[in-house]
């Protein structure tokens, strides 16, 4: 291999790696392109105090509800004992998964597809033995079910809301009456930007229509 070529490879490679580190450290452009994923080392950057699972539910015209993921074929559990849909934290693939299952199965006409989050505090993941070491009261786990989005049979999104934890965060802020009043004070009645025309009350703060 010619020396000039190896020099170029070394130079480019170290430049790319350094750029990734600088970009990530200074929080500048680290999510600007998918290739940045190959040069930004943000392992375990996020965390949550709640465990989350997803359910894709299809409602047939007869009123029967169907499971739209995983499909009724070989189950694939990528990292242990959970189906693939539970790893789609951003929810970018749930629609595709549901449509793929509908395409590959026999079923009655489907009225709507609903993406539901099941959320519970991670403390309930403690085994009974460890729970007994730390708590005096018995474990009383409870899941919260949150409708994240609703689609038509062909995947057209009818409604979508932020995830349950974002809802809790928003709710904790909206609990402050002064802050809520301040958000209404001094607002312009007429703004030229078309996105402001959609009205003010189609989505309540508790996430319901």
């Amino acid at each position: 291999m010619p020396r000039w070529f190896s020099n170029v490879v070394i130079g480019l490679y170290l430049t790319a790696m350094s750029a990734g580190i600088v970009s990530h450290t200074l929080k500048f452009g680290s999510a600007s392109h998918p290739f940045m994923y190959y040069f930004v080392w943000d392992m375990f950057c996020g965390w949550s105090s709640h465990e989350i699972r997803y359910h894709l539910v299809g409602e047939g015209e007869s009123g029967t509800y169907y499971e739209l993921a995983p499909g009724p074929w070989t189950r694939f559990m990528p990292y242990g004992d959970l189906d693939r849909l539970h790893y789609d934290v951003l929810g970018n693939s749930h629609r595709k998964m549901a449509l793929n299952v509908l395409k590959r199965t026999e079923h009655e006409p489907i009225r709507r597809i609903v993406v539901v989050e099941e959320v519970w505090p991670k403390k309930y993941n403690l085994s009974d033995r460890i729970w007994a070491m730390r708590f005096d009261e018995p474990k009383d786990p409870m899941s919260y079910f949150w409708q994240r989005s609703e689609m038509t049979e062909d995947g057209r999104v009818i409604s979508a809301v932020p995830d349950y934890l974002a809802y809790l965060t928003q709710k904790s802020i909206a609990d402050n009456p002064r802050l809520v009043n301040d958000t209404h004070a001094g607002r312009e009645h007429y703004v030229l930007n078309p996105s402001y025309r959609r009205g003010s009350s189609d989505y309540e703060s508790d996430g319901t229509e």
Partner: protein
Amino acid sequence: MSNSESVTSRIRHFFYDTEVPFALAMIRISLPIILMGLALPRWVVCRELYSSDGATGQLSAGFLGVDLLPEFSGDVVASLYAVMLFAMVSLSMGWCSRVSAFISFVLLTYFSMLDVVSTMTKYLVISSHLFFLLSLSDCGAIWSVDAWFANRKRNLDPTQPRISYPQSAAWPRRLIQLHIAFVYFGAAMTKIHTPAFFTGDQLQYWMLTHLNYQHPVGEFFSLYPILLVAMGYVTVVWEVMFIFCAWKSSWRSIILPIGIFFHFMTALTLGLLMFPMVCYCAYLSYLDDDDVRQSFAWLRRRSRRFTWLKSVKRILVDGASRWSEHPEWRRPAQIAFAVALPTIAFLGLELEHHWDLYNERGPGGKPELVAIDPEHANRLLARVTPQRDIDKFFAVDMGTFLVSDLLADRRNSFRQGETMIAQCNLVPPHEDMVVECKLRDDANRVVNSMVAVGTREMFRVNINFPISENMKPGEYSMTVETAGRHVMKKKFTVLPKYGTVATR
């Protein structure tokens, strides 16, 4: 001026000193074998994960909101996936090593970018980097099919090995070393950006997460957040220092074993299995000629004790010698590789058809959609239940002193005269809350009560209770309430200032 020359010269030596590519050969052999643990289970479902006949989850969707990569039909994907598996096997064997490494790099990168949901991980990113660098290296120069078919010089000097190993510039190995060092440095920056990492909360919750493989040790460690904080600080310091200390010096013998231990613990506490293996594989790049020769000499000394091991070694050496006497097979081997690629693609396609992932070609045609139990469906689709108070609190613990705002001596018995700290751990996100702790005696009478406010950004509320001599030795309980509603209860014992309850 002389300094700058010296630096240039040192950089040149660093990248261009020649060496036998022992380390690269070891990475070449081990990395594909490790990745088979990920690639083989996905083979069965490659149509669903990576093709337009399935449900891909492209990496670009999370960055740009669009699918950037082309998606091929299930048949094409089945063929390409089989080619990728074959390339990884042939790379491990060292058959057309560079081409195999390049095919593995391109296809692994492509497939992982197509499925960010269940394939793409940072260890696959590291693997892609390693495959890329291997494709530019002489990793197949030794211990490989390529080496068996190569013309190799024979040493006439009896003090040297019978056949001399080929040598090449060190830069691909150096780039792998730098790569892993950059990864750790970047990971340290990530931790510095994450305040909850240094309070132990992030690690505690990750250890309770049931998304990765089983990790019961993590659950146990989550009981000791102070330990997690200490380990967190050690990790960050180690990650920052790695790029400076991992080079051949006395520091290396400290830094690398810490790395091996660190990754081993991530397997036990977080359930990460592949990540440590891939990192161990990359660590092989820190072995140079001398290290490998010394290791072999040590192994030779050890093997002399066992006659059967010596005979196995003799068979292997003789076999390798016989193969190396056929350099004329090199060209046919390359042609066979070129023929094998389309053959494997075809076989992969046929095999995948035979599997019939979606059960579409069975006697009953397409499978029926699975109905959900109506009661379960009603639970799923019901209006969200208001959050219970108990779910805003993680636990309440008691102790007498704090380290890093965490209870250092979690316990349930206190002597008169001590100050008990009640630590209420909150589950974020939560609203601003009034937290009231009440101490009750065995007759359920409130003997003390204190109130604190847990604002929304707080992870824990600490309330100090002096255990005065008015509190008689005996059994007590502490109840935690918010807005007058009971949340949780914890029992504790008050002991006399000196001696035991029994002595009184």
